[in-house]
């Protein structure tokens, strides 16, 4: 019994170390006073300073934030509607279309949208990336919202109607406040997914538009510099904050993916 627990803990610690060591190294080296990511030389904030002077990087970050903001707002609205519709009505096509973008390899959606936009003569850029992000974020929001609805006592809506509320009043006064944590968590999740997305952006951004992940990609394809460490650290910090906030709002969120 004791030996088995020690074995389990050893295996678990190895797994956790495997998960965190790479990320820790990135963070640590972002403060390292050396161009080589090889050994610790000394503490510096130079890489962060250089980051702030890097206009391309700032522009890419601005693009990413803009896309993520628009994509999360629109996909939260549409995803909430989809979640409510899937919970309440029998729609055959909707669940398939909501879940398929999550279930298939990401690259398929990227190339399909690339063909679509080019054939329509739609200029690839911020708008095409945002449209693509909305399409794959809808599903994640819908799942969280539907889970929230499934956990809600159906008789609450009947009680509202019984008390004299019209279907719309019942939705606004009872359903919406009760699913709000799910909606908010879904919005944060959509924001995170959008700001982190690489594959779909890679195909739909076109030549002229760069998001933060695309910028990181081109930097590490050319040369590994500690500047990448710094931007990675900042991005991880942002994601961490978003996820912790989302998890506080809706603890079940962490199990939906």
């Amino acid at each position, binding site marked *: 019994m004791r030996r*088995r627990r020690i074995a389990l803990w050893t*295996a*678990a610690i*190895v*797994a*956790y170390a*495997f998960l*965190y060591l*790479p*990320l820790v*190294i990135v963070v640590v*080296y972002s403060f390292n006073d050396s161009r080589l*990511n*090889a050994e610790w030389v000394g503490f510096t904030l130079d890489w962060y300073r250089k980051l702030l002077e890097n206009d391309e990087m700032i522009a890419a970050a601005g693009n990413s934030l803009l896309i993520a903001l628009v994509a999360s707002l629109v996909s939260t609205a*549409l995803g909430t*509607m*989809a979640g409510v*519709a899937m919970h*309440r*009505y029998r729609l055959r*096509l*909707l669940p398939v*279309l909501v879940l398929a*973008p999550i*279930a*298939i*390899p*990401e*690259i*398929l*959606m990227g*190339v*399909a*949208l690339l*063909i*679509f936009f*080019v*054939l329509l003569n739609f200029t690839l850029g911020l708008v095409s990336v945002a*449209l*693509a992000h909305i*399409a794959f974020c809808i599903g994640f929001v819908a799942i969280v919202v539907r889970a929230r609805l499934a956990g809600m006592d159906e008789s609450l*809506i*009947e009680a509202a109607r019984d008390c004299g509320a019209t*279907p719309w009043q019942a939705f606004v006064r009872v359903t919406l406040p009760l699913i709000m944590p799910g909606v908010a968590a879904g919005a944060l999740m959509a924001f995170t997914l959008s700001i*982190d997305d*690489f*594959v779909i952006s890679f*195909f739909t951004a076109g030549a002229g538009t760069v998001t933060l*992940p695309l910028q*990181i*990609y081109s930097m*590490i394809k050319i040369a590994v510099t500690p500047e990448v460490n710094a931007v*990675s650290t900042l*991005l*991880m910090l942002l*994601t*961490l904050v978003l996820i912790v906030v989302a*998890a506080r709002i809706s603890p079940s969120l*962490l199990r939906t*993916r």
Partner: protein
Amino acid sequence: MDAHRPVSWRKWAVGGPPLAYLVVFFAIPTLIMAAASFRSPGEFGGLAPLVGEDGSLDITLESYVRLVEGTVYLEVFVKSIAYALVTTLACLALAYPLAVLIAQSPRKYRDLMLLLVILPFWSNFLIRIYAWMIILGPNAALAKAINGVRAVFGAEPVSLLFSSFAVLVCLVYVHLPFMVLPLYANLEKHDRALLDAAQDLGANAWRRFWRITFPLSLPGVYAGAALVFIPALGIFAIPDILGGPNDTLIGNLIKQQFLETRDWPFGSVLSIVLTVAALALAGLAAWIGRRGSAEVARA
């Protein structure tokens, strides 16, 4: 829930907008891509005109033929499936003890332990790949140590980076949380009394695991396998960044067709075959999983 049928206008008012959006920006693009796979590539990329100068319709199986003609592309497919399989098995081996431990931990620690598994997943995909560039880099401690040992035996130094090894390690790293979650969700539901009963009936720890815990966890194993296998099969960024010249997988091939050689029909064929293969193999796993759990239920 609403007795006052008909409610169909309400149904479409709520479900209509997301449905319309997904039809336009997901279903139609996917169908267009499927159609593109039966066309010829255009002279300057994209597609050839649907009606040619001589009035003939451009509908062809050429790209599909090209896929199966030589062995080059089939080899890439086999290699991709092999990489995805190895990744799945390695994830299973790493995730299983972890999932067991979390499921057996006191309830108040479980959420934190799970959160720690999921958090890295939420950090940027490229950053997680990039981290391995640092760890496996030629100047990093790991490579120096390995090559130091090799030098003692007179062997040539090797590069850890830009190798199949790097690709596989990173594939496992990126997909590990997908395996832990469904395994945990399954293990958490197990009735402890079953293990107590087995012990009471004389089974030792080893037998208790293989006769009780593992068979009951099979649905979780298959769910995790599907969640790891599908994305692993379509990956292109990891071999693109960490792989060597021999590490071209389907994803890289697809990327090439669209962004370099600009052969849309062939790229579409590859994408369709990739998706069908991924879903078919995942479906197979789910089917085996269901049959497996039905057998367990019968036994």
